[in-house]
């Protein structure tokens, strides 16, 4: 029996969340393919209340498939596993628990559960679609017999907005006082290693530019880690140089991306790394630690580090900040890479993947 509907199941659908936006793109592709497609959630942000249904309202229908957007441990996974419909898993990666064991043991437990749940789904899912080759390898390790990769669909329309004037004005005044602005966007989380960015800033200010500033945007996944980061910043006497901006609006984020000189990621684990594409979109040169899916996402559009000791990161920032030719090369490489991962292309990739799966496995 061929599929007449593919409904998605996602633990949480909130605004500007990369996985939530990806799910909305999947829904739009499925509807373009002539299939019914609804999104069922456990938790929904106020801006999406009309776009998603609570999962307990789901009533099966003949010819329907279910697709689980997997990125964390959730009770939805067990519910999904027990449903009789043919199943797909779209895997975004679950952060390995060891990053959180010391900081938030309860979250680490949740991550262990999440990874177990996704491994268990290998037995019931007809196919696993990963958003990166790195994630696909994990699916294969989990025991999925049929897998493919289709990149995360990142919608840059969030930057079709003017910069927040207050933030932009403040950043401008800082620039006038001299020193470069270094940006990293991502949740304050042990695996994102913001503490390594602070160490690199200490080295950079000492070696090259005593007025350099670091902007860290993004809410916190770990309050304990954020607290430690704050204390570390205080101990290094960097309150005038490190801006822990927290969760920001699209307008504020646009101001940060437009006001920065270089984007630096020292993250140790990324299943894809959507902010790297956002940096490319905003014309920022990227320096990135070559971990997990990062090299695959950036291609040749970043200065990739295999060593993130503060001295090396500082020297890399200095090189990118002062070598205009290298800087131009990185920005241009970023534009090329972004074109490869452009929404129209990633949508086409997902559409081809879905068509093939539904055709072969119906």
């Amino acid at each position: 029996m061929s599929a007449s509907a593919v409904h998605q199941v996602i633990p949480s659908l909130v605004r500007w969340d990369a996985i939530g936006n990806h799910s909305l793109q999947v829904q739009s592709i499925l509807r373009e393919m002539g299939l019914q497609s609804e999104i069922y959630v456990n938790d929904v942000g106020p801006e999406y209340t009309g776009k998603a249904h609570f999962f307990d309202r789901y009533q099966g229908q003949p010819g329907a498939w279910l697709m689980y957007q997997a990125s964390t441990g959730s009770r939805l996974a067990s519910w999904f596993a027990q449903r009789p419909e043919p199943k797909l898993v779209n895997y975004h990666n679950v952060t390995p628990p060891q990053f959180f064991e010391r900081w938030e043991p309860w979250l680490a437990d949740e991550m262990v559960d999440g990874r177990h749940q996704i491994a268990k789904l290998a037995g019931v899912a007809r196919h696993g679609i990963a958003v990166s080759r790195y994630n696909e390898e994990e699916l294969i390790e989990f025991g999925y017999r049929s897998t493919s990769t289709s990149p995360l669909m990142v919608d840059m329309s969030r930057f079709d907005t003017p910069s927040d004037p207050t933030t932009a004005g403040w950043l401008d005044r800082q620039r006038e006082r001299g020193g470069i602005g270094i940006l990293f966007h991502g949740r304050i989380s042990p695996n994102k290693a913001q503490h390594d960015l602070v160490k690199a800033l200490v080295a950079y200010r000492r070696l090259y530019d005593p007025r350099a500033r670091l902007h860290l945007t993004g809410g916190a996944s770990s309050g304990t880690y954020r607290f430690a980061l704050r204390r570390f910043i205080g101990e290094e006497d960097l309150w005038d140089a490190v801006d822990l901006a927290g969760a920001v609006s699209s307008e504020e984020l646009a101001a940060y991306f437009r006001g920065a000189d270089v984007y630096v990621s020292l993250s140790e684990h990324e299943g894809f790394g959507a902010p790297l594409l956002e940096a490319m979109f905003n014309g920022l040169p990227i320096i990135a630690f070559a971990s997990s899916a990062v090299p695959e996402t950036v291609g040749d559009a970043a200065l990739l580090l295999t060593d993130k000791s503060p001295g090396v990161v500082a020297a890399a920032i200095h090189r990118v900040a002062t070598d205009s030719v290298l800087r131009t090369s990185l920005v241009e490489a970023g534009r090329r890479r972004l074109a490869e991962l452009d929404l129209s292309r990633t949508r086409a990739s997902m559409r081809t993947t879905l068509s093939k799966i539904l055709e072969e496995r119906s």
Partner: protein
Amino acid sequence: MSEAPDPAFDNERVMAEIRDEVARRRAAGDFPPSLERELDLAFDRYVPAGSVSSDFTEAVRAADRAAYINVAVPTESQKPGVGEVKRVLRKVMAWYLNYLAQQTTAFATASVRAMRSLGERLEMVEEQLAELAPARDDAADRPPIAPDLGPWAGLCVECLPRRGRVLHAECGDGALLRSLVEAGVDVYGVEPRGPLVDAAAAAGLEAWPDDPIEHLSAVADGYLAGLVLSGCVDRLALPRQRRLIDLAAAKLAPGAPLIIIATLPQAWTTSVAPLEADLAPGRPLHPTTWAHLLGRSRFADIAVQDGGDTSAVTAKRSG
């Protein structure tokens, strides 16, 4: 430095130049490695201890460091005017926060002191327990000499069932395993000494490098259709020998046979290598003692057979 835009810049070349730059600055003393180490240590001070991987002392030290509540909150800010507001708030609230912080610090300090005292007592208990605990049986303290179990092959073939998995621990070089396999018994073995287990595996027998007690602990309850114990039964300390019997009772299916092939105490020092005899944590038991212990556990139909320097005690797991 590059001179013209390079559509695909050479990451390795640029990184090599960066590493040279770092080496040059380090050699000039601008950024000594010790500073990087200090930065690591500075952040590590705020990493919570008490996780699975950290020890008790580290956890208490971290609690000690965190016990002091500092009310001097940072007031600096990059945003104009905010720093001033923070300073005023800090001054206005100081009397209130100090009062709370003093009590909280006193409570935290007392708790840490109690924890430290508890830790010291626990350490003493652990030391005393270590003295009482039986010495470990280490395969490295035994020469890889396979025991001669040939005289008992006939008995084993006769007692063991042809259906269900049978375990022989320790199986040595697999001589008894081979006889049992040839007789149609679905048997596998475990043996902690690498050279012996390699020899058994090379002979095409199913043998795994494992400690008998650890292996049995991991086997599902009631899974085994038969069990042969040899070697380990002669050397283990009494608590471990008792543990072996308990494990055998748990892992054997009801009615399944257990065969213990043990060296007689009077023959043991002459029948094993001096190294093994001297360093063994325990000594063999008399066959009647094995029979007594089995009788007190969940075994029935217990019988003893003598055979020169060794004996075999057979029993069946009660239903």
